């Protein structure tokens, strides 16, 4: 957990006071909507279909129990008792009134939470692996670097008016759980042949109307050069990124238009001029930031304690959850626990205030007061003792947070869609709900294995449908909701854009079609170990298309 200091705190206090006055002047008429809108966006305040929406940034997806309790309190006091975790590790409140937003923001500010740069043409939350700092074989904790970037990019005067939003993700594992290749800048921390640790830098990833995978423009960047190189990229973007057309304004368009090689050269030229200047990262600065991260002091424990094995043998539900939702930890005797926010029939990624309070209490008792948010819209308790897993499971189970479906067919990533969002063309949540009901059987889910369904309610792709094993994109045809289906997308280290399956299917049929696609996989896979996405890679979409659209 990073410990903010008094300067951070003061900045937030002043920011809230400033926003409070801006709201006052908007309500009194002193500010027009045209003047007010950019100001509220700079604090993460959107206007959606039914109400204002407040997006709060959760830096690199790490929350303290105190922060989670405050989020719960705000949800209860100012909202309708729940919040929605997003595909950028943030949280959204859907119902806070404009009049009460300053109070809600003041409460969040007290625990270091805010909506600065969660909206608008700015550098957004730097996201990472939700298992950062605890997963075995990680090179080092990528959150240190996410914090370096957060500090550097927050209110950076030169980059406050970029052509468009800018998203950065960083990971330090060979398994990419942060989807870095679909970000404007993706950073992979790794150890090279010479044993040095540095970054592979990818630029120009992104989804939406024109999806692209990021291109590696710097195979190995020394840590010292992180900020200067980033600066060079942003300067090239700021200089040459289009501002005449919002659909052509992301850096991915610039990289594509120039070509990766030319773009890399532009960055290199800019970088050579500044790399040894004040942006060269001082080892001392990094040490200082690292020192402000508080790490647990783990006890000396053994893996697979007897108590755990006994509990596993004694309870099938617990055993199923262990196998699905619990993963090895770098510290012996500990475990990484994923909390499913995808209960059968539930809206993906939502948690009630009561659940949040209970999770905070569990974090205090069993996870050193720390919670993580994944871009998959699930939560994590990152440091649970293996001999506490039984206790933790019972509590999670009672809360409806222990559905053993992580990574399986019903662990769906979905945007809020037309039920909430003013940009949407179709609903996504009810489709997700119906899919979880259709695939409720654990035996069937386990047989299907890892299967990622992603649903977006419009082309902006907040549900990351392009990189779903099965991607659903909601569109509107003559006032009706239809869904385009793509297959074979991947968001991990083998990132791939999905291929269109065939004609869009109507709302009333989409769950049946997905069911038939899944049945096709069972028929076509070469053995039960071959994952759905690998069967699609091997055979292409044609055999799936035949079965998906077969007359029934």
């Amino acid at each position, binding site marked *: 957990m990073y410990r903010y200091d008094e300067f951070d705190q003061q900045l937030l206090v002043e920011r809230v006071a400033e926003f409070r006055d801006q709201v006052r002047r908007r309500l009194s008429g002193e500010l027009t909507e045209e003047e007010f809108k950019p100001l509220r966006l700079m604090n993460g305040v959107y206007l959606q279909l039914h109400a204002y929406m407040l997006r709060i940034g959760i830096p690199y997806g790490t929350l303290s129990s105190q922060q989670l309790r405050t989020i719960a309190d705000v949800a209860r006091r100012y909202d309708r008792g729940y919040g929605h975790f997003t595909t950028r590790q943030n949280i959204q409140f859907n119902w806070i009134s404009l009049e009460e937003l300053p109070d809600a923001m003041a409460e969040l500010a007290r625990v270091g939470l805010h909506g600065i740069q969660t909206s608008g043409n700015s550098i957004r939350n730097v996201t990472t692996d939700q298992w950062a700092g605890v997963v075995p074989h990680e090179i080092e904790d990528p959150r240190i670097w996410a914090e370096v970037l957060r500090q550097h990019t927050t209110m950076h005067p030169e980059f406050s008016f970029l052509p468009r939003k800018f998203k950065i993700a960083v990971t330090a594992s060979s398994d990419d759980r942060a989807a870095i290749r679909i970000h404007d800048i993706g950073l992979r921390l790794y150890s090279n042949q010479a044993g040095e640790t540095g970054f592979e830098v990818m630029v120009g990833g992104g989804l939406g109307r024109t999806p692209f995978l990021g291109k590696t423009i710097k195979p190995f960047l020394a840590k010292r050069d992180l900020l200067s190189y980033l600066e060079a990229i942003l300067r090239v973007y700021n200089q040459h990124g289009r501002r005449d057309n919002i659909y052509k304004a992301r850096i991915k368009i610039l990289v594509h238009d120039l070509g990766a090689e030319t773009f890399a050269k532009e960055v290199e030229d800019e970088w050579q001029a500044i790399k040894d200047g004040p942006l060269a990262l001082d080892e001392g600065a990094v040490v200082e930031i690292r020192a402000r991260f508080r790490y647990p002091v783990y006890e000396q424990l053994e893996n697979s304690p007897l108590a755990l094995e006994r509990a596993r043998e004694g309870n099938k539900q617990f055993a199923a959850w262990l196998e699905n939702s619990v993963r090895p930890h770098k510290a012996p005797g500990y475990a990484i626990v994923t909390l499913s926010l995808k209960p059968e*029939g539930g809206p993906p990624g939502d948690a009630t205030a009561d659940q949040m309070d209970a999770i905070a209490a569990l974090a205090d008792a069993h996870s050193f007061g720390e919670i993580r948010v994944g871009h998959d819209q699930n939560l994590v308790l990152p440091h649970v003792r293996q001999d506490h897993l039984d206790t933790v499971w019972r509590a999670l189970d009672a809360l409806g947070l222990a559905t053993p479906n992580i990574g399986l067919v019903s662990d769906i990533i979905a945007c809020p869609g037309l039920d909430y969002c003013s940009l949407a063309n179709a609903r996504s949540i009810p489709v997700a709900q119906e899919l979880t009901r259709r695939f409720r059987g654990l035996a069937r889910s386990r047989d299907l294995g890892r299967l990622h369904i992603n649903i977006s309610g419009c082309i902006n792709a907040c549900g990351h449908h392009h990189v779903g094993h099965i991607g659903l994109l909601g569109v509107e045809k003559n006032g009706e909701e239809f869904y385009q289906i793509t297959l074979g997308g991947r968001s991990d280290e083998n990132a791939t854009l999905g291929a269109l399956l065939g004609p869009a299917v109507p709302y009333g049929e989409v769950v049946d079609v997905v069911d038939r696609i899944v049945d096709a996989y069972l028929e076509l896979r070469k053995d039960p170990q071959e994952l759905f996405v690998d069967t699609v890679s091997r055979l292409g979409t044609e055999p799936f298309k035949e079965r998906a659209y077969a007359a029934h």
Partner: protein
Amino acid sequence: MTAPQQQKLRFTGPMVVTANRLSDGVVIYFTHDGGWSTALNSAAIVATSEEASQRLSRALRDEQHAVGAYLAPVTMAAGQRVTPGNLRERIRHDGPTITLPGVIPAEASAHVPL
């Protein structure tokens, strides 16, 4: 549905002017007397494109109460009952089509079958 504010003004049937209430974002409809109501039945129905333009301009000037005013289609049912004219407007009028969390349905707390 392209955000209505971005659509060109094309008059295809009865419409109302709608917006979000400034103070809390609640969906509101422009009434005959130039005020706003949360009740769709109180909304002034515009029947011609000229009237639509006029009403919309008037609504857009009322920034004190309403944000993002635009023209939304309505359907005139028998007996002059007014209903929202498309899915987006139905959702704006009725709220999300899903049960909001906090009302945990029984199925979520039951174990999935093994």
